[in-house]
């Protein structure tokens, strides 16, 4: 299997076919082939052949797709980053990964404008264990960590996901996840590999439902790939139904726990569309389990199952001593198999803590509670302070560390405010070092502004509560439970 050869082959078979559509811009397979070759040649001339990572900065731009494929052709792994991330966060990623280049959308355009097509261009060979991409996720100490995914992992994933979800040349995938979130790997690569079309939904469209629904209506999407949170957002409007996207044959939801009420609503409003739930951390390449959620499944199980492991991958349930629990008992979900990442880039300490070898294969401690029932795996929450907020994976410690780094903070605790089973928004409880003359509102706005220089917008708490001191537990730590109770 050669992903690049397969994608390039579509430029011969269907040169005019749209490979990626985003914000009114389109990229055909022929354009993808020519432009990625031009950019890859530039990268091969500009950088040594050293597998060093390249940061690609943008937001759902078609130039990012060109950049990803160009990196693969030039023998460099890429790190996708959102262009609205704060400068400091981008710098931390560049430094941690020791990236050799940062390619912005504008830079890619400049290179392509000035480059000539070389008809004799040959991509560099990639070995199976060469890193293909690196995705940075929130880290508990305030610094993000980069998950390294080799070529073989991506190939394994495609070998499973493409037939499992019947992706063909006629498939039009509607992709919501930003490229910094690995759910987007499914929509991008399944689509490009099979010669289909990816229609991206942008941040601005999501912020304005009117605009979003216009895109959905005109998408002709046959497959929907998103977080459950995004589906929930669309379901808030009654017009979101089969009439809006009559071509849709499949929902593929992943990235966070899927609430039964979302399933009930989707099956009711899209009676002809299949609904699939998938599970898998970034550390195990997009997804490792999946299952079709039917009315029968919903009638029988709550929570909704995350399904069956992909072939070749084992999902094990271990106790706190890392030993298998008895069948049906609750424990930590361990993923073992070829799709497990090789670790976090330049962080052997974190890698050693989270990854281990089991029966000659790579294994990963997910930190997720789970259990087996009727042959399927069920997710039962987190073991630590990692949460999913509207689909984003966030370590509460990441926000707290960044809050502590602000000028006038003595102590800070972040509490997710729950709505039913899912986190609705974040509240920050703050003790200030010195009292200011400003109102609480002014203090909150000043802190939000300062935080926006350090962490992405989706991590900034909605509410700030200023206290002279925190209630304490008997261990002398801030009592999170009591703080959460004040928000009820």
């Amino acid at each position, binding site marked *: 299997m050669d992903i690049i050869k397969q994608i390039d082959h579509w430029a011969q078979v269907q040169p005019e076919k749209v490979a990626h559509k985003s914000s009114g811009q389109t990229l055909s397979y022929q354009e993808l082939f020519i432009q990625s070759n031009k950019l890859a040649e530039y990268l091969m001339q500009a950088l040594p052949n050293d597998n060093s990572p390249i940061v690609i900065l943008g937001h759902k731009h078609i130039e990012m797709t060109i950049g990803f494929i160009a990196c693969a052709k030039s023998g460099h792994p890429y790190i996708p980053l959102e262009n609205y991330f704060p400068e400091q966060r981008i710098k931390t990623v560049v430094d941690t990964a020791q990236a050799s280049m940062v390619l912005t959308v504008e830079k890619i355009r400049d290179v392509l404008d000035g480059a000539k097509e070389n008809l004799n261009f040959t991509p560099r060979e990639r070995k199976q264990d060469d890193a293909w991409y690196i995705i940075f996720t929130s880290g508990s100490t305030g610094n993000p960590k980069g998950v390294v995914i080799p070529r073989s992992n991506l190939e394994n994933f495609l070998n499973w996901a493409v037939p499992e979800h019947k992706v063909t040349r006629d498939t039009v995938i509607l992709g919501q996840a930003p490229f910094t979130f690995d759910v987007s790997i499914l929509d991008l690569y399944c689509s490009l590999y099979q010669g289909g079309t990816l229609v991206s939904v942008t941040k601005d469209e999501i912020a*304005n*439902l*009117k605009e979003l629904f216009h895109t959905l209506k005109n998408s002709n999407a046959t497959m929907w790939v998103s977080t459950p949170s995004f589906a929930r*957002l669309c379901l808030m*409007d009654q017009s979101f139904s089969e009439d809006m996207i009559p071509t849709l044959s499949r929902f593929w939801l992943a990235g966070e726990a899927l609430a039964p009420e979302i399933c009930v609503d989707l099956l009711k409003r899209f009676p002809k569309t299949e609904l699939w739930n998938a599970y898998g951390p970034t550390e195990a390449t997009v997804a490792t389990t999946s299952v079709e959620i039917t009315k029968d499944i919903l009638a029988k199980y709550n929570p909704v199952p995350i399904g069956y492991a992909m072939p070749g991958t084992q999902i094990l349930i271990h106790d706190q001593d890392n030993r298998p629990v008895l069948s049906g008992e609750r424990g930590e979900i361990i993923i073992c198999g070829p799709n497990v990442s090789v670790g976090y880039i330049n962080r052997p300490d974190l890698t050693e803590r989270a990854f281990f070898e089991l029966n000659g294969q790579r294994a990963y401690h997910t930190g997720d509670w789970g259990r087996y029932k009727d042959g399927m795996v069920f997710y039962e929450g987190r073991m630590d302070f990692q949460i999913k907020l509207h689909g984003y994976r966030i370590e509460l410690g990441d926000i707290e560390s960044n809050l502590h780094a602000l000028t006038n903070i003595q102590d800070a605790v972040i509490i997710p405010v729950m709505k039913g089973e899912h986190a609705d928004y974040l*509240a920050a409880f703050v003790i200030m070092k010195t009292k200011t003359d400003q109102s609480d509102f002014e203090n909150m*706005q000043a802190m939000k502004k300062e935080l926006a220089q350090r962490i992405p917008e989706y991590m900034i708490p*909605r*509410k700030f509560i200023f206290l002279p001191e925190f209630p304490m537990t008997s261990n002398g730590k801030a009592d999170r439970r009591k703080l959460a109770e004040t928000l009820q």
Partner: protein
Amino acid sequence: MSVNETVLKHLERFTGTDQVRKDLNIDLFGERLLDSLASIELVLALSEDFSLDLAPGDVDRDEWATPQKIIDYINARAKQA
């Protein structure tokens, strides 16, 4: 309860600050007081309270950018109903 009071009560709940009462022209999105999910929930809450047929997909974000704009929007829709 008046339109003003109902809108402000909901806004206070969603934004977590009474500043929305003190400054009716505050930019709710620009000041990061409302995100897209909260704004949709606000549309649904006001739709229910005033028995108006408001669909989140029909509401332009610019028309809901400040407390005053929301109050004006609801008043206008209530008159039409």
